[in-house]
């Protein structure tokens, strides 16, 4: 691959959906209930302890791609304090992609943990 990829895109690609870390986090933030743009930004930031802070332009670019893949869809619109809020919801396909990705990441993390435990200076067997 000429472009750098993360474990996310490589892992998911074989499943038919190419998810970046950013997309994974957005889908995760939508897993429990629909959220509007600003709520998504704050939720992703909270989920990652501030490590990932989505820019609004980046978020809407990612939402475009995810909507194109059928993983998210607009849910409803509301006006709060004079501001238009459009809510986005996870689709069934999005939930399935998120579940598949989560299981693979858990399996990968499990493998990594087991192998790290084998290193002598970490207390594992030689």
């Amino acid at each position, binding site marked *: 691959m*000429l472009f750098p990829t993360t474990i996310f895109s490589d892992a998911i690609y074989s499943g038919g959906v190419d998810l970046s870390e950013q997309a994974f986090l957005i889908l995760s933030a939508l897993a429990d209930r629909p959220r509007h743009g600003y709520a998504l*930004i704050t939720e992703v930031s909270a989920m990652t302890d501030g490590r990932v802070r989505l820019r609004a332009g980046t978020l809407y*670019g990612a939402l*475009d791609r995810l909507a*194109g893949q059928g993983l998210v869809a607009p849910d409803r619109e509301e006006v709060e304090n004079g501001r238009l*809020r459009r809510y986005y919801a996870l689709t069934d396909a999005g939930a399935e992609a998120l579940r598949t990705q989560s299981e693979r990441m858990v399996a990968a993390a499990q493998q990594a943990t087991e192998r790290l435990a084998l290193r002598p200076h970490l207390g594992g067997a030689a």
Partner: protein
Amino acid sequence: MTALERRYRRLLWLLPVDERRARGDELVGVLTDVDAGRSWPSPGEAWAVLLLALRVRGARSRTLLILTLTALLVAFGTQLAGGLIDTYTGAMLPADLAMVRARLPIDLAVALVPLAAAVAWILGAVRIATGLHAVSLLTFGIVIGYELLRTGPGSGLDPLWVVQALSVPVVILVLLLAAWRLGWAPPRPRVMWLLLVPVCVAAWKGVGVWGRHGVTHSQLGSRIGIAGTVLAGAAIAVWLARHHHRSAIAWAGPAGAVSGYLLALVLQLPNWFWFAPHGGDPVPFALTLLALGALAHLLARRLFGERDGDREVRTG
């Protein structure tokens, strides 16, 4: 309306009109929340809006970018092959030819790599085309670098010429990488583009002949060429206008005017390519191919319908 909101609304003019109408209020709401307490947009958010606008506009111009890539690749990829043929068929005196004949295998290899990249792209082998073109660009860069080192500063190549000479292959590489990454398909009809490859090789050989040994073209040919270009441009404009492709008209207008002007120059001044300000520039050639390719694309879509790869990306 706060100063921050007013400034963000101005920034959103970067987005296409329909995107701005559909999403402007929503985006401004998020942006003003994110930058609450500020009077000016933060650089990071402004940069992300700029990238979003580029992405949206780029996705909508995909067909044009693919045609531009193909036209540039064919014009650039056939240049060395045409020049090589010209070298052995009249450009050099027999006595001088003996000096270059010894390096024919190298010249042949250098000429065939970009040619193979163009053919690979037309056939849909994007990775092979990218690899071959990267090799070609690397070779080109090494040759120029060696020449710069050999002649030293001040007495060697014109820096402006170097930038211009490298700009076309670099742009091609960027577009090929985009094609690879974004899954672009080569334009239709493939047969036409494949046939254009030998035609372009012959054309590069031909422009080498112009201006040599008193070879010129008749004024009649020039007038027929200009009239044909004007009529073709008018027909395309009428067709586009009838189908309300306003953005296409905006592109087709300047492209048609430039290609018509260049075609007229080519026909009136037979050595235009050769004695162009930066001799051997493939861009004028590519513009002519672009106009031809755009016309063929529109006809193919009309006759054979739209395929998945032709569909422009719509967002919002």
